[in-house]
């Protein structure tokens, strides 16, 4: 049995409300909250980035797995906000965790699905028998241009998953990836903020790829939506995952636990992984979980998990996603937010 042996998530404490951003740009807050189904989003502290978020999530995963970090043979971080253009995030993370130096490390980038890529490769290496454990992390401090629709959603957070074959808490039964060249969202080298194709990000991009992976996964597994207790899809806003779930035949109840975007925002590479972590926090043995990520450019990775009886032993060993989502929030005004996100031009 190969699957997740430890999982952990982390969200920063800082928040900005959608209405605060809307007020700044003279927009109708209610229309945005209703349209995007986003109430507020997480904001990284001035001392937080993809690396610190990865370390925090990975430490929680290690607390749950209770394994020797030295047994981890690979560590991959998926993000579109790696702090360095040239220098891997993972080298800092392994040294902070006490993993390695006999370890394979890489940074992945595939817009919002880089985290599920890291999970997929980590799982595949363990499945191939190359190593005992491998860790896949999805984390981001995503960027949204001032005044752009993305500013309401681009948030910060991440989740880490240790793959292994002993004391598995969620077995991975099936995977499927669906990819094509679709320029719906991009950020050129040296640009501060990404650009997107507006409505083109919907049907030709998000819905085509998520449904492509989801339908292939259902066909491959010979399962139907009603066979699952939970489902989680990439959450660029509140509306898209609900809509794609409906189109595929999943109910609101199946999506509810993992649909954390209205209060978290889009954590990009951490989006569906943090949703999965929220589900694993409360899942029971034998629950089936359906997950499909999405990354612009574009592609989707799909996973089918079966929760094992080991889950109840690990759930309380580390803070849960809801703890980070609901507790100790610090609200920022737009000026503080602009400072935190380095949107203000300063003298050097």
């Amino acid at each position, binding site marked *: 049995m190969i699957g997740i042996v430890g999982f952990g998530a982390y969200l920063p*404490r800082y928040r900005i409300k959608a209405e605060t951003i809307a007020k700044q740009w003279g927009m109708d807050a209610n229309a945005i909250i209703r349209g995007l189904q986003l109430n507020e989003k997480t904001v990284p*502290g*001035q*001392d*937080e*980035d993809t*690396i*610190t978020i990865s*370390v*925090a999530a990975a*430490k929680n995963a290690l607390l749950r797995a209770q394994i020797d970090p030295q047994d981890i043979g690979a560590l991959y971080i998926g993000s579109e906000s790696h*702090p*360095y253009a040239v220098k891997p995030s993972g080298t*800092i993370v392994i*040294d*902070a965790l*006490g993993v390695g130096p006999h370890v394979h490390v890489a940074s992945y980038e595939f817009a919002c699905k880089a985290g599920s890529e890291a999970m997929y490769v980590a799982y595949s290496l363990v499945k191939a028998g190359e190593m005992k454990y491998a860790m896949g992390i999805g984390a981001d401090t995503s960027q949204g241009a001032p005044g752009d629709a993305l500013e309401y959603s681009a948030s910060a957070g991440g989740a880490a998953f240790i793959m292994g074959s002993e004391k598995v808490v969620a077995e991975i039964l099936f995977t499927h990836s669906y990819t094509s060249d679709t320029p719906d969202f991009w950020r050129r080298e040296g640009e501060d903020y990404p650009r997107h194709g507006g409505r083109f990000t919907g049907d030709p991009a998000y819905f085509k790829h998520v449904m492509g992976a989801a339908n292939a996964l259902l066909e491959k597994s010979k399962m139907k939506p009603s066979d699952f207790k939970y489902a989680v899809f990439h959450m660029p806003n509140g509306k898209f995952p609900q809509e794609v779930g409906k189109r595929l035949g999943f109910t609101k109840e199946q999506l509810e636990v993992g649909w954390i975007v209205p209060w978290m925002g889009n954590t990009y590479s951490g989006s569906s992984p943090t949703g999965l972590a929220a589900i694993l926090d409360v899942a029971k043995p034998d629950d089936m979980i359906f997950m499909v990520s999405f990354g612009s450019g574009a592609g989707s990775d799909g996973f089918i998990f079966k929760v094992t009886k080991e889950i109840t032993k690990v759930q309380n060993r580390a803070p849960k996603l809801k703890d980070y989502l609901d507790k100790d929030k*610090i609200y920022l005004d737009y000026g503080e937010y602009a*400072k935190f996100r380095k949107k203000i031009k*300063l003298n*050097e």
Partner: protein
Amino acid sequence: MITARYHREVPQRYRLEAGKCTKCGYVAFPPRLVCPKCNTKKFKPIVLKDEGKIITYTVIRVGPDKFSKETPYAIGIIELNDKLRLTAQIAGVVDFDKLKIGQKVKLVFRKIQDDGKAGIHMYGYKAVLA
């Protein structure tokens, strides 16, 4: 060169690695080459507990250049649960009037500073209220 010094200090800054004298048991943080108690040069690395309490603190309202945009922030002397003391920023404090000596803290991994606009990012430990 800042990168060489930073690299040398990674075990203590990232993982709270201290040196424990193999002869008298003295714990040195940051690690030292010679034990100040028994002059032995043999230490074994140990990892300190990441939980402790505030012994004392001050609030920085006019910071040095690199930290001037982060003010106000608190700096404290933290006593870890294994009785060793260190100095760290106490991050994420909203109301400094509510900060108290004796409050429990946990050390977390955070970015400490950047070496200018194009230099390396430097990481290490900060305390947050537990």
